[in-house]
């Protein structure tokens, strides 16, 4: 199984450890993982702002980089949601359609495709609060949604439940957006910050030592908010825990 590893720009520049953990984790399962070196971004920052024309070349580049793999895997629900559900600035050729359909977020790839049922190397003896990115939650169906009448499930929680020592804490508003929202975090910084403060207080009040998420973008925002509030809250990507990080 040939896997193309997509490491979104935030992770590449600010959280390379998340990309490394994702690569190593996939390699633990004996997969043939390649990182196409000409990759940049999926185009979401532009389309998020309505600028589809400005996004088309970036989307085309993404498809050129990832054509031919059995699966494209990325440790980011938000970016994968863009590729799979919204990448329509570029002309929809067969290659584009195939790449879009084969692109998976790491959690769903482990849960639905590899059907991993054990991470014997993983141990994380801490109290953690799980943050679901909104695109991962409501766009990729990572978990059941509190607004809908549907049976409860959570793919990231299923995976984390297989990590020794990990203890979940539960926050008051689990599905509430943290206020990152891509370019929203900049164009409407006041509301974005307030939402972030409320979110990290919710984690903190629940007794979390760590916030874990499948999305670095939300966590970058929340971490910035927690640091500004002088909270001792720590943030870690789910790939790192599943790959055996202890802290």
């Amino acid at each position: 199984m040939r896997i193309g590893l997509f490491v979104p720009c935030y992770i590449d520049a600010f959280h390379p450890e998340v990309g490394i953990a994702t690569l190593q984790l996939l390699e633990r399962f004996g997969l043939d993982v390649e990182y196409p070196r000409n990759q940049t971004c999926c185009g979401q920052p532009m389309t998020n702002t309505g600028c589809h024309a400005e996004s088309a070349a970036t989307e085309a580049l993404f498809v050129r980089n990832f054509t031919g793999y059995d699966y494209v895997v990325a440790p980011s629900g938000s970016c994968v949601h863009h590729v799979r559900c919204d990448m329509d600035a570029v002309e929809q050729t067969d290659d584009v359609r195939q790449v879009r359909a084969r692109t998976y977020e790491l959690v769903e790839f482990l849960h639905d495709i590899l059907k991993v049922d054990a991470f014997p190397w993983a141990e994380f003896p801490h109290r953690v609060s799980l943050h679901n990115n909104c695109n991962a939650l409501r766009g990729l169906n990572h978990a059941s949604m509190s607004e809908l009448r549907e049976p409860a499930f959570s793919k990231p929680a299923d995976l984390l439940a297989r990590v020794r020592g990990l203890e979940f804490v539960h926050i008051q508003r689990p599905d509430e957006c943290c206020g990152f929202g891509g370019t929203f975090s900049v164009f409407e910084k006041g509301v974005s910050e307030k939402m972030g403060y409320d979110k990290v207080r919710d984690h903190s009040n629940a007794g979390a030592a760590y916030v874990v998420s499948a999305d670095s973008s939300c966590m970058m925002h929340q971490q910035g908010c927690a640091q500004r509030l002088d909270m001792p809250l720590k943030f870690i990507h789910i790939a790192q825990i599943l790959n055996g990080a202890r802290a």
Partner: protein
Amino acid sequence: MSGAQGSDLNRNPPRSGRLDHAEGASVPLHSRVREAQPRGAVINGDQPINQAEAAERFMAAPEHERMHDARLWDLRQKRDRQMHGITEWEDLRRLASEIKEHALTHLDHYLEQFETNARANGIHVHWAQDADEHNAIILSLLRDHGVKRLIKSKSMLTEECGFRDFMAESGVEVVETDLGERIQQLDDEAPSHVVVPAVHKLRSDVADVFARTLGTDPNDDDVHYLTEQQREKTRPLILDAQAGLTGANFVVAETGTFVVCTNEGNADLSANTPPLQIASIGIEKVIPRLEDLPVFVRLLSRSALGSPITQYTSHFRGPRRGGELHVVLVDNGRSERLGMEQFWTSLKCIRCGACMNTCPVFRRSGGLSYGATYAGPIGLIIDPTFNRHRYSSLPFSSTLNGSCTNVCPVKINIHEQIAGWRRVLAETHELPLMKKAMMREAGHLLSHPALYRAAIATADSALKHLPRFMVYNRLNTWGHGREVPAPPRETFHQWYAANRASGQGEPS
């Protein structure tokens, strides 16, 4: 799947010994300090509304923001509890959506059917193309009947039409009969929410308004006192009004009747006290059959307030003996919206306000920050159809988190339409030039790997360039209330080159 319950994470069990709906289950909220009420968006002709600026002012009044967020979140939680009590909830939403889509795609047929049947019931039916026609029709009816005072119940359509201001200019006194709407009228402020129009106000704000307009004690903000005072002052105005105006929640084509849902019974007061009754109704309110109605009645109040049903669900079938009943069917942009391929399903909206209650941006901004008749998620997709330039920034007042779509009882894909509007606005040159230029630059950088790599090659340049497209050319915008992430020694790209030999070629 039936009987499946949401996870314990997501549910608050009903409090024992208290009613599980309506006010009985509300979290009692007590505001701690007296604080001046923040006002809404600055309106400057057709200049784009700056929602973010008004939101900042709302949040600068922390007691107002805290109470607003808590009150609306409480409504959302009660809505969730109601949902869990109805096994077929998702089927109801699907059915409601399908009935509305059917009615909207056969709108001419059902409107004409309604008109015919309503006339047979003795109802006078008028058609208004726009707000001006609507206002003129009603004014002429009032003049024909020598009406000096009109009592009215809450109606978002009349807000669309600028009805109260028009009547004031025309010398007709209008008295709102919905308590929240009356508060807003006395304060000369628009409703901030389609269901709870004064939810952005604290009790102390209401005490100020009543002291100023009704002569109550400014230091007494007891809700019973304030409500009683308002009742005593307003009731005489209601009893000798010569005409009453209501909106309608639903119009039933096969029976030629319409239905108004309220909790205060005030629509009945407006309709049944004076001899002349008028109903202003948007053309999208029509449903085909009476048997379609229960689907909506079951969803409406559960979605809006988390109560099983409104206290009053009043069916109006014809004029009272000796009276007259007029219905004004209003288009005011609806036909044009119906022709918009991406946005026509916004006409399914039954104005429950669930999208506002769940919206994390709305809860922290207040409805008046949108500077438009319709606030919150539904407003973001309706307002630009009224004035694309003035409301061009509103679709950006969203994180696109999608909760609004999930709570919508008629399954409008609200967050997708918000994203759709962003694209339309960009394509029709309604984006600020600076924003557009930054996106063009980001698109250029991100589609040229070598340029991109050079831009973020070192930690310093990454901080300079990466946030440049990420945070719109101003590092201090990100850093205003958040710490900027520390860039690590090397990018993943560099680590990969050093640690995995078998990668593909270097950037071309």
